[in-house]
């Protein structure tokens, strides 16, 4: 198992390095930040002084060398916009995204397992058709539209929920619902498909012939075998949630990493962008590792391969 983990960690280091290199060099191809940070009426002398102070007038390779040297000391640089340490901004935003993504994924997986299993239990029954229709609709609903409609209906018209923000537990409802709807729709379809396959396998018949109850057949035998594809898709969705809650964070004023990354791209705040991408990449890398480990634990065939 340890060998397997070591192999996975080493193979993930290369993409991580590519991400660091890509973000550093691509960001610097997009123009001089002095034009954004200084007033339009600033003199050329002021622009040159700004570039010199922040090292933007050095050759790119020198800048990259400085960046790596700073990284070695866990120094992520300073935000051009706020003059605060970049790591501070990123570490402040990241838990907000993790919490939102975690709650969303938890609800999506739990809901999808129940709805998908029920739909698969009697394929083509009215319940299955309704679940399939609703999950397809959910999976194809644009989150931007859903969020704005949610605000208009539940906050402005019905006055049940706050429009946005983070004050109070009610403020979680619309962001989580918006973030939940697509993963939920996708996962229901995946769980249903995997469960239909699992429930038609010979071992289910054996279990039933041995007198196992239906609940045990579904949740103990079939669901466990349907777990692997569900886990794969849930892992992909989790990566998307961590990386891409931008729309939800922007609309609902959620102080997360997605909004921070978009803002730092638009404002050419290189230090914050690099720190945010690096932390997100590391998290996704850790998440993928976790999924691999879960996969090993869930599927004996994978376990045997991993141990070999």
């Amino acid at each position, binding site marked *: 198992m340890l060998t397997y983990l070591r192999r996975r960690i080493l193979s993930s280091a290369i993409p991580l390095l590519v991400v660091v290199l890509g973000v550093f060099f691509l960001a610097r191809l997009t123009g001089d930040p002095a034009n*954004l940070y200084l007033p339009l009426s600033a003199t050329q002398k002021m622009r040159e002084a700004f570039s010199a102070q922040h090292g933007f007038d050095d050759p790119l390779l020198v800048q990259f060398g400085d960046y790596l040297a700073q990284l070695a000391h866990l120094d992520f640089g300073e935000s051009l916009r*706020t003059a605060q340490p970049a790591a501070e901004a990123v570490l402040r935003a990241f838990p907000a995204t*993790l919490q939102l993504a975690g709650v969303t994924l938890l609800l999506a997986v739990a809901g999808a397992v129940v709805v998908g299993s029920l739909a698969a239990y009697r394929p083509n029954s009215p319940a299955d058709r309704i679940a399939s229709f609703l999950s397809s609709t959910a999976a194809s609903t644009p989150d931007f539209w859903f969020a704005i409609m949610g605000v208009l209906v539940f906050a402005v018209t019905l006055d049940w929920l706050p*429009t946005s923000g983070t*004050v109070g537990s009610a403020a979680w409802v619309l962001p989580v619902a918006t973030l939940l709807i697509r993963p939920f729709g996708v996962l229901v379809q995946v769980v249903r498909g995997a469960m239909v396959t699992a429930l038609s396998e010979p071992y289910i018949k054996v279990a039933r012939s041995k007198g196992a109850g239906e609940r045990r057949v579904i949740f103990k035998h079939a669901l466990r075998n349907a777990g692997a594809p569900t886990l794969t898709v849930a892992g992909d969705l989790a990566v998307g949630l961590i990386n891409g809650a931008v729309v939800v964070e922007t609309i609902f004023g959620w102080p997360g990493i997605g909004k921070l990354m978009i803002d730092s791209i638009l404002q050419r705040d290189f230090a914050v962008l690099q720190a945010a991408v690096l932390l997100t990449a590391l998290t996704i890398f850790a998440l993928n590792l976790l999924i691999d480990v879960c996969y090993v634990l869930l599927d004996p*065939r994978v*376990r045997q391969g991993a141990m070999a």
Partner: protein
Amino acid sequence: MTSPLHPPVSTGPPGRRAAALAVVVLLTGGCTVANSGAAADAGTVQIVLPEEPPTLEPCDASLTATGRVVRSNITEPLAERVPETGELEPKLATGWKRTSPTTWRFTLRKGVTFHDGTAFTAKDAAFSIDRTLDSGIECNVDGYVFGDSRITASAVDATTVEVTSKEPDPILPLRLSFVEMVPTSTDADSRVREPVGTGPYRIEKWNQGINLRLAQYGSYWGKAPDYKTALYTWRAEGSVRAAMVSSGEADVAVGLAPADGAGDHAVEYPNNETSYLRMDADKPPLDDIRVRKAINYAIDKKGLVASVFAGLGKPAGQLVPDGVTGYNPDIKSWPHDMKRAKSLIAAARADGVPVDTKITIIGRNGIYPKAAETMEVVQNELREAGLDVKVKMLDVNAWTEYLLRPFPKDAGPTLLQAQHGNQAGDAAFTMEQIYGSKGAQSSYGTPGLDRRIQRAEHAAGRERQARFAEALAYQSKKVVRDAVLAHMKSIIALAPDVSYKPDSASGDEMHLAEIHPAG
């Protein structure tokens, strides 16, 4: 190999406890975000902004996001410009006079204290001016207002400060109205995020990323504002800002577009910005004044304002709006006359001007509502007039490469979509940089226009007004470097229980003391 007929059994601890713990941590962690703000009470005015201020550093108060929170709320300048009249009114200085062509003397208000309890003196004023202009902390105000001007300030006595410029500067008090006063205890070597000021409000709590609360300063020298506290939040999405006012979560929402749906809560106001197209008048075919005039005739400004801008603007013929020193009431918006535009292009073509050369409109996404649609309308009109035009929409950073010198080489003739706001109220802050031959934002100038601009910059009072007005008229008639579109308007949403009258400065500063409970 495990037989698929035998459902696999768990090979290790199920980890349920760990999973349960993770869920609990996640959910309780959620509460840290959920409870990190606080609700507002009746004595609080709630304002929702498009973005969080990056800093509250007073020497960056010329940044819109910072200035609208800081200026005259937390910190104050020596004097302040009244947007309606363009005149300076006393703030922390009760008076000022020019004692020599290069020297101004300011008499300071007595009895003013900073939020830390220390008295405001001439030493603080001199320190604040030096810190803004000479401390090497890259103050935005320095670049915005002072440029190459070199200024020194010194305390004459406790209530008198003397400010000297290297060159005669008739509008020095206006420039200094951008310098916010801070105590000498403020760090002179680096920026501060949460300043101490003399304003009617002090910073109570800044929950970064979430909200900012200001509380009334009990020892304020002036009249106490109506609201005890002010709570700022920020939402990037305009429709959500409007919805917050509709649902009663905010009293004031700023920076709205017509499509944001503020409905009856919307209040329109002129925002000091003027939209225009800058022409590369040194590149064919735009180097022919007939082509530049044709472009002005071809664009239907009234139609643009009525349809694309949804009425939020007024067709304009010059870059400075009424209320700014130098505004020329005789310069009218160019009439829409497609027939004349076509004949001018035909005449230029007949004289060998390469009018078929591809002209690129460099647009900027989001520079004002429906920016891309505006450029598409202009493109169609210019094509109809006989020009070959394409549109290239860019983000702000890529766009500034075209806005500022040195311009990209081999870009071909371009029309740059731009917008100019004269926040300072004097045409000096427009003319040199936008129309001067060497101006940072100028693609073309003439010696005649340069001369007129320089003469105006050295004049004072009525003469200054007349000379800038003449320079603007010369630009409009003889140079025709631009196609000016409209003096723009903005929308603010106000809840029924507050009263506030926005003015042309409201986009850049919002005085909390001017917000009152309705009725």
